[in-house]
């Protein structure tokens, strides 16, 4: 269950300059401010010092296996959707040392890592990403074992969410009930409005911390008309999703079709390259690697992002449980849309579309699910 958003007062209006002041207050409060910025031909997440670092006037065009930046006709600061990075890289780092050990007098001494608590401010978190964070919270924090690293990075995050007022070519959050409006899990949420020569942000406060921050930033009160206009923009975006996925009974459908011929067909195209899992904001698998120095006196254990698409990932005494691309792809998609529901009480997919865009051959989870569903409908119509 995602937490309910508390409401503190009415909505506020920020100009782009005032939004920059908001970032400056965060920086003054020792936050490491992270947000969307352009690098290597894509919108990625990295350090931002001011709104100047945001991708002003850029948008993205996305399709299966294809991503291109395009100039917009306006100076929107958040006029794109999600890119190849997700926020998980900050809370669940791609590679990190877990501990070190050294040998002395024939004994091993473990040296735990000393880690500093971080204070991240995430700027421009989308609705699907808020859901992804809450899913990873469940995985890393709410089970019998708490991931201490995740907890350390996650605890102090200040989240500035942004509603999507345009949907991407591979987006389907509307199907997954995860967007495009940021519903909960943020400190403040913005809707960017560019209308009749005006450019401003309608701000909703989600937490006390958010309200407190806003008290430090000059702003105006939003009128009911401002708010309604912004809400309409978001509602409009929901109607223009590039993809859709019918989730009705999806778990049962997939369970019934574990030997469907479609798994063979998708395996013909799948490269088992793992890109889909790496870019997915909810995928959480990792491996550990043990290293030593040449003398054998020092050892280190590292944790790295891993994927159900590697053969080593399912290696259990003597051989790999899932050695074929068919079994790997099936495991991934079944986990996202079916097993996850049994395991964590939620879908593992938030409809962000990254796995579709960043698959080098454009394999599309919504299409795969549709074909399997339609196969059932046809079969029952015939039978």
């Amino acid at each position, binding site marked *: 269950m995602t937490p309910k958003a508390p409401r503190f007062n009415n909505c506020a209006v920020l100009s782009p300059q005032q939004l920059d002041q908001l970032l400056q207050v965060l920086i003054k409060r020792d936050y490491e401010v992270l947000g969307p910025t352009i690098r290597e031909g894509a919108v990625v997440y990295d350090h931002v010092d001011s709104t100047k670092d945001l991708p002003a006037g850029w948008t993205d065009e996305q399709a299966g*296996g*294809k991503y291109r930046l395009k100039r917009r006709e306006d100076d929107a600061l958040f006029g794109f959707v999600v890119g*190849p990075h997700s926020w998980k890289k900050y809370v669940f780092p*791609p590679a990190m040392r877990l501990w070190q050990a050294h040998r002395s007098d024939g004994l091993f001494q473990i040296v735990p890592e000393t880690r500093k608590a971080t204070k991240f401010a995430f700027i421009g978190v989308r609705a699907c990403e808020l859901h992804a964070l809450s899913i990873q919270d469940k995985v890393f924090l709410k089970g019998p074992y708490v991931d201490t690293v995740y907890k350390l990075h996650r605890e102090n995050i200040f989240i500035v969410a942004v509603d999507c007022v345009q949907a991407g070519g591979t987006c389907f959050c509307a199907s997954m009930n995860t967007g495009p409006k940021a519903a909960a899990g943020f400190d403040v949420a913005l809707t960017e409005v560019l209308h009749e020569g005006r450019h401003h942000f309608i701000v909703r406060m989600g937490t006390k911390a958010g309200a407190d921050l806003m008290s430090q930033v000059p702003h105006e009160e939003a009128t009911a008309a401002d708010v309604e206009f912004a809400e309409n923009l978001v509602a409009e975006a929901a109607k223009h999703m590039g993809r859709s996925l019918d989730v009705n009974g999806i778990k049962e459908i997939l369970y019934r079709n574990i030997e469907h011929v479609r798994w063979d067909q998708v395996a013909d195209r*799948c490269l088992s390259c793992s*890109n889909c899992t*790496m870019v997915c904001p909810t995928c959480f698998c990792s491996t550990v690697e043990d290293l030593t120095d040449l003398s*054998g006196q020092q050892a280190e254990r590292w944790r790295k992002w891993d994927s159900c698409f590697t053969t080593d990932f399912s290696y259990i005494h003597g051989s790999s449980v899932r050695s074929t691309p068919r079994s790997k792809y099936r495991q991934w998609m079944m986990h996202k849309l079916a097993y996850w529901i049994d395991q964590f009480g939620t879908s593992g997919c938030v409809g962000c579309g990254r796995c579709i865009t960043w698959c080098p*051959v454009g394999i599309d989870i919504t299409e795969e699910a549709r074909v399997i569903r339609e196969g059932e409908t046809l079969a029952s119509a015939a039978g």
Partner: protein
Amino acid sequence: MAAVRKPKIAVWKFASCDGCQLSLLDCEDELLSIVGAVEIASFPEATRAVVKGPYDISLVEGSITTPHDEERIHTIRRSSKLLITIGACATSGGIQALRNFKNVADFIPMVYAKPEYIETLSKSTPINDHVFVDFQLRGCPINKLQLVEVLNAFLNRRKPVTPAHGVCMECKRRGTVCVMVANGTPCLGPVTLAGCGALCPAYDRGCYGCFGPKETPNTTSMSAGWTALGVTEPELVRAFRSFNAYAEAFRKESEAHER
């Protein structure tokens, strides 16, 4: 306690450019500790001195291209406890395996003034076509850090950390934006073994496949992806036919596009 004997390591060269064994010399920071940990018994690139076998570890660079080398590799195998092949030549036949797709007798007279002195095999083949190989370290050239890791692992009797997955995971872990998706640049990363640290995509180039095929390489789908980007059949042949041309998956894929 008796003094522990240092493991004896020999480096051997067959048909190759020496680039891989030079990686060992290139390990400046680690070289002193390597030299401290082992006895370098034979290493033509570094010293003329040769210590007699048997050797604990033989590092073999290069492919088998002559009848003489075909014999020599057996002698080396017999005198080595562990035989580790390093580089694309030793593990797949190297760039010189391009001859395997043609008739070598046709071009000997074009290259050599006195072809009768040339004694060569019709194919350039990897070491493991001839003798049992304990471990293969791939790459053209190999990654020196991986070489240190392999030696380190064998000296410490543990499994080397050398992944079997593809280059894409290295790109994604370092946050590199996919050149194929974001720029339409043909890239062999999805079918190529990781190990270089995803160097080329980090410099905006597609992967050239220096480390050869990864585990479960779907080269057919890779080619379909490249074709969709406008790559022609002859270009596909050349892409798969480079340093690892004779590695099975790459060989079959290049042949599939040759009429």
